[in-house]
């Protein structure tokens, strides 16, 4: 299983509300209705950002959504974008709402994180982290997992409403280049009123990771997850 993470910001002169409506009502329908493309995708989730915090050296774009596209393999993912229908129907629609200069594509590998209760949730924390030491990127996922388990052990209240916890390790680009971030911690939680606890979780993770995390390049997004294909968990 492979997962593609696409962060994007809206085009000029568009409000966030217009962007979200277009992505949900038009673009999602276009992808689902284009069978030669959608048959390669096992899941497609749009996550519409309702708040965020960026480090001082994080990307300058203020993202409006993050799409997660799942396929059985990297070959299937490539096959989907290589179809004539993708090139002629779906790709030309993307500039209607997403600013192509903002779009950031990263392949991810998922690993579950410890959690006492699992279940359905529709809100997401997407916490993008960069290792301080470029050479430590390979071990950073392990450090992130340890930090999460330490937070869970010592401050379980911040994870009270969390029903999904996944660590996404960013894979190098096709040419072997380092991705824009090293890991993305993904939590699914229940209510907007849980946001302060989720912010506390972020602060505790930053504290637990200490100097291993480059806070200036890291950022987190709070979003509503909309399943376009497949189910949310």
């Amino acid at each position, binding site marked *: 299983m492979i997962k593609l993470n696409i962060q994007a910001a*809206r*085009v*000029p*002169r*568009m*409000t*966030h*509300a*217009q962007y979200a409506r277009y992505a949900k009502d038009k673009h999602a329908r276009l992808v689902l209705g284009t069978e030669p493309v959608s048959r390669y995708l096992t899941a497609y989730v749009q996550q519409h950002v309702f*708040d*965020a*915090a*960026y*480090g*001082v050296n*994080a990307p*300058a*774009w*203020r993202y409006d959504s993050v799409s997660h596209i799942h396929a059985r393999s990297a070959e299937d993912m490539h096959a989907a974008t290589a179809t004539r229908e993708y090139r002629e129907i779906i790709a030309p629609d993307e500039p209607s709402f997403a*600013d192509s*200069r903002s779009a950031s594509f990263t392949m991810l590998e998922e690993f579950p994180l410890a959690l006492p209760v699992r279940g359905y949730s529709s809100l997401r924390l997407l916490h993008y982290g960069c290792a301080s030491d470029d050479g430590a990127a390979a071990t950073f996922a392990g450090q992130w997992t340890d930090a999460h388990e330490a937070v869970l052990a010592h401050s379980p209240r911040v994870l009270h409403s969390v029903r999904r916890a996944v660590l996404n390790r960013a894979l190098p680009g096709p040419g072997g280049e380092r991705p824009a971030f090293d890991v993305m911690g993904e939590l699914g939680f229940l209510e907007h009123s849980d*946001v302060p606890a989720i*912010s506390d979780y972020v602060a505790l993770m930053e504290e637990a990771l200490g100097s291993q995390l480059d*806070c*200036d390049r890291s950022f987190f997004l*709070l979003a509503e997850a909309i399943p376009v294909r497949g189910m949310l968990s």
Partner: protein
Amino acid sequence: MIKMIAAVSRRAGMTHAECVAYHQQVHGAIAREQPVTLRRYVQNHVFDAAYGTREDGAGQQVAARDSVTELYWDDFPGMGATFAHSYTQQKVGPDGPNFGDITTTANLVAQEVELPVPHPGLGGAKVMHFLRGAPGLALDVFVERWALAHQRALAEAPAAASAMRRAAQNRQVPEGNALLKYFGSSEAPFEGVGCLWFDDASTIGAFRAYEAALLRINAQAHQAFYLPAKSFFVYAREVLIL
């Protein structure tokens, strides 16, 4: 009355919710404690926005705005007295970086001019349309063309005019520009900010028809007054601090 308007982007590491909560509860309380000569203070907490124009391939704006401050004084001496006061310099000013990135503040000193609308009312949601003047256009010509464009836009977009509950133009007063250094921004002052009130968030979208009419009018060379690529608007809720 003279006023100062400043659109703030939150500081690094802060969410929008944290920024507006701090702005209202902490910064607002500090300002209320010793207003000096300040007559009125309104915060406008942003809930959506759009920047620039689709025709602008360069994408000249990425600083998203979180809150817009409006400060009112009787006159320039009153404004100067507030900024010269030790409380402002030692308490209010230094608190700004706790929630805002002061280097990117979009601001101006302005005179507020109320304009008639067909169906006046209170209006719970507000558009603040920051206008960057067309390059080389004298300020008095900008003001004259903007006023005419507003009247024409209301006529060309009757649904927007009908939904509008109040309208005001904040026209730059250049004599006040020197006082803007208080906010520490590196951006040049905007030439104007149009404020338009609608009933609530569900009807505020009517503004887009008015804005589209403004763009059409502005596209005529003899009527052009602003630079859409460097202008923006926010949708906001007013919070009265003082």
